[in-house]
């Protein structure tokens, strides 16, 4: 106990550290190191490599960067690959970063998405070179799947190296670590783990660790004892385990040769020996309350970690692992057992190893060491190796012997206390460490105790048996990592069961600890920053105008408006017009066309969108319906331009519809008191919603004008109604608009078209209103058997509809009689128009049904019922000044119709009152 606190400093000990030439690495990155100074004032002047450098900590230098991309789904996503060296760890790694814009403007544009440490399993393959447009390579490390990258033949940035250079740099970086094989195991990739953290928040927190980390001292007590298959009974173990003045925080107690029986070896005994653990718990420092954290055993080797109750909650993770290095590297008589744990923010590793025995087997021991370092991988989420820890304590029977110095051959001669210094000169472990053959980077404190092997059990005397084994420092405790101070290192002579003496070492370790208050503050800042970054990186599109005003829109005229959309963000952005909810279920109303409806915008690009509006035969019905039912100000439509992962922009398509007679119901037309061209949209909307039974005329004048014109044409109307009249071919010509204007102005001029066009206009007038002419009795009418029955229903129609129907039938009948047109065809098309199904069913039989219904009204013998109806209709015409104009053709028609047909006779008049 007297030695405690004495040998704190390790100044006199040869410290073997990883031989990394930090100066050569630093020289390449002098430019990048200055980036911090520049960052605040001259952000825009930073080169890409300087920005990339900001993702890393001090002592981690970006050597080169390379632009690549990955194909995820259908998308090309940019990646920046960079080769980074950790000066402290002496190791290299390739980092893959996702860039939210290229070139990045600040380090917040970059997110590390993958890390490839350049360890032995790392592999950069480009054996399958693709075509010139798809150059590819893969990166692979450990047992993970290779990751595929593509790259462009030319790079855009001066900072960025070409592929060959990058590959050469990566290869040589890897080679430089592998060149001296002994070094490779000492190199630490622990720094890389900081970047493997899942998620941006953790990554960013790790990067800013220095802002919330403080160091807290813990006492760690390491102990090792080769018990030589002996029981602990009666051993004063407290001399070994409670040798420090203060109660330590953590114990790592290593035993060897717990049970080296053939049975234990063959069955790889791995159940911790609880009798031993109980004894340990009894023997640890009595000033503290302790509990076992974990134990791990492989045959003779057991490592038990015991912790003070009060710090138990500071240990957030612990894992164990064993590795056999005995015969054929499968038996566990030799090898190692290890515990990995996280104490606050630091990762600690304790290794208990029993290496190959016998004086001459130095190489075998070195090999065992390397085998353990390479082969032992914990099953934690990061698959940590021993070197992936901040603080490593290597404890055990390392079995290194003392080369026989001249004159000191006999055990007795080596027993003098002051000879330790001389003996250590010939200590194989120290010799090998100096040569760099094992335990690279490890430190051992000064040894001020006698060799711990080999004693006659029960005594303090060296081996007196025939073999006379030379004494040696077999039992050792080494450490690796920063902020470790050794407080004691000693053996215990008074424990005598074994042929070894137990050894212990006490350390003070400054453990990275989170300051909760600062952590919370930084965490809040990080969340804020990441939110801000996400909000700022939201794709944005600038739309030239959000209101498209078409002004006055006329029936059957297509109007077009173009507007531009521009990419307003530093990356490719997609957009599309959003499909509206059912019943529309389309991106826009029927009367609109939007092209293109979906597009991708490259950086800095602009595209033109064309909006076409046409209120024509295909759309006027629904347009008028929308005008009629819109409560608020009428807009033709509101388009939703939906930016992919971004905002939705409303684009209002507005203007005013100039009413025309087409599409308006017979009732509405009968409410007008002047030509349609003199109405505006609002006035016509009011008329459409007017439900009073008052009408200004008995029949729409537009209907009269057309019937009158057709009637006057005599034989010229031949073939005016054909089966394809309902395709409205004339209406799709510009000339048709003269007919529209002729009707909408009640023109006195000559009809500006052919009889065929007039026939089509007549059909349109009847076909385009929201409801068919015989609504609401369509279905009932189709069920009627006799004309009289049907006429009863017809008499229930509103007077404009009834009058139109009667006159239409008389007119058609006359034409058919005079053989101007085919009665069957006329019945078919007018059946479809007047009895149009509102349910949009396409029933063949219904079609026939409609035709037959119409035939009853337009063929011989039925007209008698109609004549009186027409007379009453004409007499009902109002006293308006247009009265004369409106009634004249009807009167004429009536006369001609009755002249041509059977006169008088019938009394089944349709009552129009």
């Amino acid at each position, binding site marked *: 106990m007297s030695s405690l606190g004495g040998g704190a400093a390790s100044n006199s000990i040869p410290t073997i550290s990883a031989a990394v030439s930090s100066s050569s690495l630093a020289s390449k990155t002098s430019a990048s190191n200055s980036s911090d100074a520049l960052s605040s004032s001259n952000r825009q002047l930073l080169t890409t490599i300087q920005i990339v450098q900001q993702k890393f900590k001090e002592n981690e230098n970006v050597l080169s960067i390379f632009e690549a991309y990955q194909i995820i789904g259908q998308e090309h996503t940019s990646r920046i690959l960079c080769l980074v060296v950790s000066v402290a760890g002496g190791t290299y790694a390739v980092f893959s970063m996702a860039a939210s814009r290229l070139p990045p403007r600040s380090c917040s544009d970059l997110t590390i998405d993958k890390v490839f440490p350049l360890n032995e399993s790392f592999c950069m393959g480009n054996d399958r070179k693709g075509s010139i447009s798809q150059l590819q390579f893969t990166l692979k490390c450990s047992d993970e799947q290779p990751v595929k990258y593509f790259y462009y033949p030319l790079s855009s940035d001066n900072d960025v190296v070409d592929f060959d250079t990058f590959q050469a740099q990566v290869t040589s970086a890897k080679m430089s670590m592998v060149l001296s094989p002994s070094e490779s195991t000492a190199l630490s990739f622990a720094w890389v783990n900081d970047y493997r953290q*899942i*998620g941006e*928040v953790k990554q960013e927190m790790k990067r800013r660790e220095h802002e919330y980390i403080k160091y807290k001292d813990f006492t760690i007590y390491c102990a090792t004892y080769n018990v030589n298959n002996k029981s602990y009974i009666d051993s004063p173990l407290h001399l070994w385990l409670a040798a420090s003045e203060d109660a330590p925080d953590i114990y790592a107690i290593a035993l060897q040769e717990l049970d080296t029986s053939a049975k234990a070896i063959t069955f790889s005994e791995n159940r911790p020996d609880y009798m031993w653990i109980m004894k340990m718990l009894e023997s640890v420092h009595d000033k503290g309350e302790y509990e076992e954290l974990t134990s791990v055993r492989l045959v003779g080797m057991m490592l038990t970690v015991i912790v003070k109750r009060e710090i138990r909650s500071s240990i957030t993770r612990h894992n164990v692992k064993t590795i056999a290095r005995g015969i054929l590297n499968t038996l566990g008589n030799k090898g190692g057992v290890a515990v990995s744990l996280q104490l606050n923010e630091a990762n600690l590793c304790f290794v208990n190893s029993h290496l190959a025995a016998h004086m001459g087997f130095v190489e075998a021991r070195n090999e065992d060491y390397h085998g353990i370092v390479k082969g032992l991988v914990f099953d934690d989420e990061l698959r940590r190796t021993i070197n992936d820890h901040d603080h490593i304590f290597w404890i055990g029977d390392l079995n290194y012997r003392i080369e026989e110095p001249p004159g000191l051959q006999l055990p007795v001669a080596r027993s003098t206390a002051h000879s330790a210094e001389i003996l250590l000169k010939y200590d194989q472990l120290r010799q090998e460490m100096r040569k760099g053959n094992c335990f690279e980077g490890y430190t051992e404190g000064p040894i001020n105790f006698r060799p711990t092997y080999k004693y006659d059990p029960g005594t303090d005397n060296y081996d007196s048996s025939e073999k006379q084994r030379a004494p040696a420092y077999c039992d050792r405790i080494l450490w690796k990592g920063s902020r470790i101070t050794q407080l004691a290192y000693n053996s215990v002579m008074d424990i005598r069961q074994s042929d070894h003496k137990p050894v212990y070492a006490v350390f003070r370790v400054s453990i990275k600890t989170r300051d909760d208050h600062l952590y919370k503050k930084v965490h809040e800042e990080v969340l804020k920053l*990441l939110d*801000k970054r996400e*909000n700022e990186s939201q794709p944005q599109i600038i739309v030239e105008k959000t209101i498209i005003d078409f002004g006055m829109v006329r029936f059957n005229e297509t109007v077009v408006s173009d507007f531009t959309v521009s990419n307003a963000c530093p990356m490719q952005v997609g957009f599309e017009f959003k499909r509206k909810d059912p019943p529309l279920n389309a991106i826009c109303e029927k009367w609109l066309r939007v092209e293109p409806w979906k597009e991708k915008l490259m950086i800095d690009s602009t595209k033109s969108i064309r909006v076409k509006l046409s209120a024509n035969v295909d759309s006027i019905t629904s347009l008028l319906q929308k005008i009629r039912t819109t409560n*608020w100000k009428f807009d033709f439509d509101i388009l939703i331009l*939906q930016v992919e992962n971004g*905002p939705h922009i*409303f684009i209002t398509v507005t203007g005013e519809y100039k009413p025309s007679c087409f599409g308006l119901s017979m009732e509405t037309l009968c409410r007008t008191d002047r030509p349609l061209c003199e109405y505006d949209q609002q006035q016509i909307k009011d008329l459409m919603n007017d439900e009073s039974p008052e009408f200004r005329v008995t029949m729409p004048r537009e209907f009269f004008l057309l019937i009158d014109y057709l009637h006057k044409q005599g034989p010229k109307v031949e073939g005016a109604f054909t089966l394809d009249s309902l395709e409205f071919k004339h209406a799709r010509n510009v000339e048709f608009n003269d007919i529209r204007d002729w009707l909408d102005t009640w023109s006195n001029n000559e009809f500006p078209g052919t009889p065929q066009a007039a026939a089509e206009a007549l059909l349109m007038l009847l076909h385009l209103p929201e409801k068919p002419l015989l609504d609401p009795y369509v279905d009932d009418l189709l069920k009627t058997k006799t004309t009289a029955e049907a006429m009863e229903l017809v008499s229930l129609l509103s007077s404009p509809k009834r009058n139109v129907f009667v006159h239409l039938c008389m007119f058609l009948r006359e034409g058919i009689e005079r053989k101007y047109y085919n009665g069957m065809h006329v019945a078919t098309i007018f059946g479809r128009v007047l009895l149009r199904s509102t349910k949009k069913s396409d029933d063949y039989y219904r079609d026939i049904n409609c035709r037959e219904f119409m035939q009853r009204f337009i063929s011989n013998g039925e007209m008698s019922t109609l004549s009186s109806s027409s007379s009453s209709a004409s007499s009902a015409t109002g006293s308006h000044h247009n009265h004369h104009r409106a009634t004249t053709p009807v009167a004429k028609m009536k006369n001609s119709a009755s002249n041509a047909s059977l006169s008088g006779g019938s009394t089944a008049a349709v009552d129009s009152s």
Partner: protein
Amino acid sequence: MAKKTYDLLFKLLLIGDSGVGKTCILFRFSDDAFTSTFISTIGIDFKIKTVELRGKKIKLQIWDTAGQERFHTITTSYYRGAMGIMLVYDITNEKSFENIVKWLRNIDEHANEDVEKMILGNKCDMTDKRVVSKERGEAIAREHGIRFKETSAKSNINIESAFCELAEAILDKTAGRESAENPERVVIDRRNNEKAPAYKSCCS
């Protein structure tokens, strides 16, 4: 890309008459900033903000809607995806307060039945122009059983607490129903319940 690091994602919607300060409220909450120039929102904009509630990282995706009357029909189609709705009026604008009833009816018709609601009387810093008393705001909220707060985006009054309270109310509901082990589940479930997803392609 880096994996998203949040436990839950809540979608919130801001609605209310044009000019009551919806965008300003969102801007204050997400960027802790305020600008007095009025730019009418023409469409749907969103911002995200991560908050910690009861040890859970909750990502709020807040959708700001156009308040203009001509857009009312179109904005209602966005109600369905929302888990929480902030209904905002302006304490200096009587009409915007009267319309609260209309907005509530809209919510009843178009939003999820279990949507969490909160009424905000904004611009409470403008005491000299106040026309709607706090009592009237409280009364209408009480009548409909909805949370209520008077806020000021300009003076940063109650903005953060309003969002956190709404988020907490949603958390209360989800906690009862879902185990938090599967962070995405809550959101996905909700989306699946919709007849037609309202913003299928724009959820992060």
